[in-house]
């Protein structure tokens, strides 16, 4: 319990740091006004606008304004869209989340059994093949893979749509495309691309852990006292394998978010990633800062969850031993 509280405290610190960086970014502005006004605007008009955006106030004032607002979920107005940033993120979040979840689940479902298998039969032909593939999996840059998939499945075969999110249906007040056929067809390639890298990483991780665990005395002793393979592998080995893997998976989740940026760019997936890239392209500083803080929040939460699971799995932490 105390462990979790400590984690909570750390999470708070992390968020503070992130928020601070976010603010620095927010401060460190080129000239948003020009991103805002089009051609044929005079200098005077620009100054007026600059004033009304509060860009002439002293830093401290702006800082407090920023933090105070951020807490209320107000990250200012996007320079390039003249819209509230929080609104826009809210619009884009579901798309990214569904993509991340889909590929995350996909990669787990494939990686765990494959990892266990390759860990157990590490000399086997199939295992060797899987490992070889996994190397490719972790090596091929996702943008390259995405392009090639589009080339093959959209352009040559014309099987799958090459862009966009397709039809969305509202499920529990959460717009998702995972419940319409069209939506799934759209999600297939992006999810696959996003999934592949994670798949490779987790698979190799689980395999390595499996090999470590299978060498331990308590596994040898399990064999020695005549437990059947199913019990040894799934009952004893797997559970111990999971302890380190769970942490890694938490990190993988956040890296999924990171890689979704690339995938979204390639497949025109209207998520937070494409929003970020747009923000960078347009030097839309408020959007950038908000994204930073938002992602920070997501990561921190996911890590907290991981820690919680950790405590559930490992009694030694529960009892504060070593």
């Amino acid at each position, binding site marked *: 319990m105390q462990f979790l509280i400590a984690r909570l405290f750390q999470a708070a610190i*992390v968020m503070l740091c992130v928020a601070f960086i976010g603010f620095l*970014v927010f401060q460190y502005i080129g000239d948003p006004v020009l991103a805002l006004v089009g051609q044929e605007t005079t200098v005077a008009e620009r100054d007026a606008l600059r004033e009304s955006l509060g860009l002439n106030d002293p830093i401290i004032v702006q800082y407090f304004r920023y933090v105070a607002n951020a807490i209320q979920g107000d990250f200012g107005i996007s320079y390039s869209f003249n819209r509230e940033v929080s609104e826009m993120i809210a619009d884009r979040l579901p798309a990214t989340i569904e993509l991340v979840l889909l590929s995350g689940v996909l990669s787990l479902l494939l990686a765990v059994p494959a990892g266990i298998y390759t860990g157990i039969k590490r000399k086997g032909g199939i295992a060797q093949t899987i490992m070889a593939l996994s*190397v490719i999996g972790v090596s091929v840059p*996702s943008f*390259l893979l995405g392009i090639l998939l589009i080339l093959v499945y959209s352009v040559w075969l014309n099987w799958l749509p090459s862009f966009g999110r397709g039809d969305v249906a509202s499920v529990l007040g959460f717009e998702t495309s995972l419940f319409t056929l069209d939506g799934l067809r759209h999600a297939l390639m992006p999810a696959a691309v996003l999934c592949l890298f994670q798949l490779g990483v987790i698979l190799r991780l689980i395999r390595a852990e499996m090999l470590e665990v299978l060498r331990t005395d308590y596994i040898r002793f399990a064999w020695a006292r005549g437990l059947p393979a199913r019990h040894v592998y799934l009952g004893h080995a797997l559970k111990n394998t999971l302890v380190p893997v769970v942490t890694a998976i938490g*990190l993988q989740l*956040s*890296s999924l978010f990171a890689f979704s940026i*690339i995938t979204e760019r390639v497949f025109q997936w209207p998520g937070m990633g494409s929003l970020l890239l747009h923000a960078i392209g347009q*030097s839309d500083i408020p959007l950038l800062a908000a994204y930073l803080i938002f992602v920070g929040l997501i990561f921190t939460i996911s890590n907290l969850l991981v820690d919680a699971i950790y405590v559930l799995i490992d009694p030694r932490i529960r009892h504060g031993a070593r």
Partner: protein
Amino acid sequence: MFEKIRSDFWYELLNSPVTVISSLIIGMIVIGCAFAPIFAPHTPFDPATISIMDNNLPPVWQDGADARFLLGTDLQGRDVLSAMLYGGRISLIVGLGAVLLSVLIGMAVGLLAGYFGGWTDAILMRVAEVQFAFPPILIALLFNGILKTTLPAEVFAAAAVPIMVLAIGLAGWVQFARIVRASVMVQRRQDYVTSCEAIGLPTRTIILRHITPNILGPVLVLAMLQIAVAIVTEATLSFLGLGTPLTEPSLGALIQIGSQYLFSGIWWVVIFPGTMLLVMVVAFNLVADWVRDYLNPRLR
């Protein structure tokens, strides 16, 4: 662990043809890129030598090709092969530079945290944890993105490579810090360190001359994996338009430029650099895997 290197190294290496081939490939690519000015038939980064009239030529074995351009030319009339070598050079520089930076920072932090423990450890590792919550590629992306939006374009263009080295390097040090710290804590408990203390050797000597050599193994492995990662990251950043300038494209930038023409039948601008990138990264990963297994045979 290390004594194995002297005894079994060659035997183990030659027993794994995949690794041998990978190493050869890496060697070829590295030499080819390092001496690009010598090997490359053209100098794609010098506008005076490229002619817009030569643009979009296919590779020589296709009709309509020009013998001067083995792998064809891109929209600017740049020789794709030369562009690959020069671009690959950038990718390698960034990859190696970034990892070197990561290693330096990571080692320093890891050694201090691991050896002294206590508050030093607490503070350093807290910092590491904060950063660890963010995937390196995202950090590099934001770092570059923010610099790109804030720096004047000419500065950013001029400093594109150092900036990327910085971005990727700063993004990657945590893994090294963690692994170094962990192994230092193991080494620190070893009696040979205590005997050094008993002899009265100064801490610096103990850390640098005694502990450091003993933790290089895992660092080496991680470094090789990280080079692959760094190269991919560089390519990705460039692909997203956050990397090298149009006039001096790295592999990633080449692919990005090419990807717009991929469906227009001008496939060679993507496929060749793409293949090179992929082969390079796979090779690095394979060699790294082998070294890891070699230093830690249990995993085999």
